[in-house]
């Protein structure tokens, strides 16, 4: 009953009035400065906590692996935002207009993400077996000294053209160059669009819509190829023997999952203040919630399909990857991943009331971002000899908490900085008018 009254209140305030006025200032609220300060504080505290693990060799190894996990999570936000930005240009719709500026801010963190990648290049010997034994000779030697298995030696030699230190540097540079190009064009045109002398006319709308569509259509395709290469070289190749053809797509969907969660979180938090207070209607929040729900479903669909196919085949060169992630205590993490990543968000997002509730959406989106971290941990740590099929919560393992949090906090601070650079909504878009209309409390 109380809900009905709430809903009525919503309806009562808007129903009898005409369109609301656009807030006089579309700039990001000043409170973002305080949020950024908090994010930086968290980054510093967790970076200092990480130092405790740096005293042992095992701890240093774990810091590096956790760093890779933190880097990949940040990359998922920046790259995922880029593809989501292009997706909203090709599909259109009011949801896209609201998310556009937060997504643009996320893409503009790509320089930071590229910078974050440098330590991985410097220490790649400690992460990737193929980087430790970069030539056929060293690989065969390592096999003769029983440092690696026959299988690993054979596949490492076979995959050498893609997996060697030089190729990795070149591949990573190409990936970032492609992403930078799209980031630059999308962000520049977005400002040009608002500054168009003909803004507000049908001709201007049509012109910019076509322009963005023509860039974004091919852009999505190119991005998917770049991401697939990146996901294979950076994460999948940690286990040189294993491959899965759905790997890139799985990362793509996981990026959508994380970016939508962060996008909704940003909008809901911003909607405590003007201008988002006026612009974010319950209708659009509900739509975004439904979209996130679709990604929750698609994500488990792909992950389970991959598992089912490999489980059915039960082949010796594929199934060990899963066995390493199920046996020896990993079953708990695997179950936790399933429960956090799918079961809980799925059950909660089924509810219409929850998707329309601002406070609850904050919790659920934070939880979804946490679930992404659990998933990355489950993907990365069992690749390493000591941990494959043997989960041990030693001292170094806690680096998987501190390092990604430090990196994410740093990334968030940069994201907030970027968010403050532009008005929070693009004005030269016909959907803006619709956002100001009274909403149908359907």
């Amino acid at each position, binding site marked *: 009953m109380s809900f009905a009254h709430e809903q009525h209140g919503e309806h009562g305030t808007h129903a009898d009035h005409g369109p609301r006025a656009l807030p006089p200032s579309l700039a990001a609220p000043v409170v973002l400065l305080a949020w950024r300060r908090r994010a930086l504080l968290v980054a510093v505290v967790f970076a200092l906590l990480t130092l405790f693990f740096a005293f042992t060799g095992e701890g240093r190894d774990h810091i590096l692996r956790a760093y890779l996990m933190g880097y990949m999570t940040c990359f998922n936000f920046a790259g995922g935002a880029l593809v989501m930005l292009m997706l909203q240009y090709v599909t259109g719709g009011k949801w896209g207009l609201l998310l556009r500026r937060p997504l643009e801010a996320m893409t503009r963190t790509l320089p930071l993400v590229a910078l974050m990648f440098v330590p991985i290049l410097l220490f790649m010997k400690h992460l990737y077996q193929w980087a430790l034994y970069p030539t056929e000779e060293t690989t065969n030697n390592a096999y003769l000294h029983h440092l690696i298995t026959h299988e690993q030696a054979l596949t490492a030699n076979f995959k050498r053209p893609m997996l060697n230190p030089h190729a990795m540097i070149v591949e990573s540079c190409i990936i970032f160059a492609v992403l930078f190009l799209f980031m630059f064009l999308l962000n520049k045109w977005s400002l040009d669009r608002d500054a168009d002398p003909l803004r507000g006319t049908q001709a201007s709308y049509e012109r910019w819509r076509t322009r963005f569509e023509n860039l974004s259509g091919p852009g999505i395709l190119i991005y998917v190829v770049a991401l697939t290469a990146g996901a294979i070289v950076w994460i999948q190749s940690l286990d040189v023997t294993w491959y899965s053809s759905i790997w890139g797509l799985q990362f793509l969907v996981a990026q959508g999952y994380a970016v939508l969660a962060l996008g909704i979180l940003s909008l809901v938090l911003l909607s405590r203040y003007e201008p988002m207070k006026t612009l974010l209607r319950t209708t659009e929040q509900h739509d975004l919630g439904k979209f996130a729900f679709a990604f929750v479903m698609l994500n488990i669909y792909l992950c*389970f399909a991959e598992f089912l196919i490999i489980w059915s085949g039960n082949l010796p060169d594929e199934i060990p990857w899963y066995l390493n992630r199920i046996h020896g205590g990993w079953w708990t993490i695997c179950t936790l991943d399933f429960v956090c990543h799918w079961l809980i968000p799925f059950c909660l997002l089924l509810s219409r009331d929850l998707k329309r509730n601002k406070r609850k959406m904050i919790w659920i989106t934070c939880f979804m971002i946490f679930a992404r971290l659990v998933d990355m941990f489950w993907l990365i740590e069992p690749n390493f000899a000591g941990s494959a099929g043997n989960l041990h919560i030693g001292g170094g393992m806690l680096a998987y908490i501190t390092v990604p949090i430090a990196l994410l906090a740093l990334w968030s601070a940069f994201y907030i900085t970027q968010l403050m650079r532009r008005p929070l909504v693009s004005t030269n878009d016909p959907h803006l008018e619709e956002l100001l209309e009274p909403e*149908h409390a359907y």
Partner: protein
Amino acid sequence: MTPREGIYGLLAEFNTPAELVRATEKAHQAGFRRMECYTPYPVEEAAVALRFHKTSVPLVCLLGGIMGMLTAFLMETWITVWSYPMNIAGRPLFSWPAFIIPAYEWTILFAGLSAAFGMLALNGLPQLYHPLFNAPNFRDGASTDKFFLCLEATDPRFSILDTRAFLEQFAPVSVVEVEL
């Protein structure tokens, strides 16, 4: 069959959806629950004023989905473990990953069917007779340009004189008694 007595309800006719929504809202506040709005096109605010969204269809759909999932999963378990055990690639008889996809499909099938049939069961369709068509102004206006609110006689608060007075305060085009 006992002869039916009395009236179905009082039908107020409005020219605009805003008037209809306002009257519906006030009627809800006044305690009326057995009432219905009739409009030529969907008026979402009217549905809100009626508190229409809190129906049992989602629950029926959820229960149907859970039933479908359990049915498929248990059926597969029964077939492979007890009814027709077969060694497939040396796997355990209870190889649950293989049961997930049929269980998933049955969840969707049962949820969809129970939503559709649950909706029909709960809204009383198919209905071959409805007393409202006895009102001539309803026959002419309900599907063209008029907006109707009907307060039904089965509501405990309904009284033919007071309810008429209640409806007249919203300045409707007319308030007519609908015969059963």
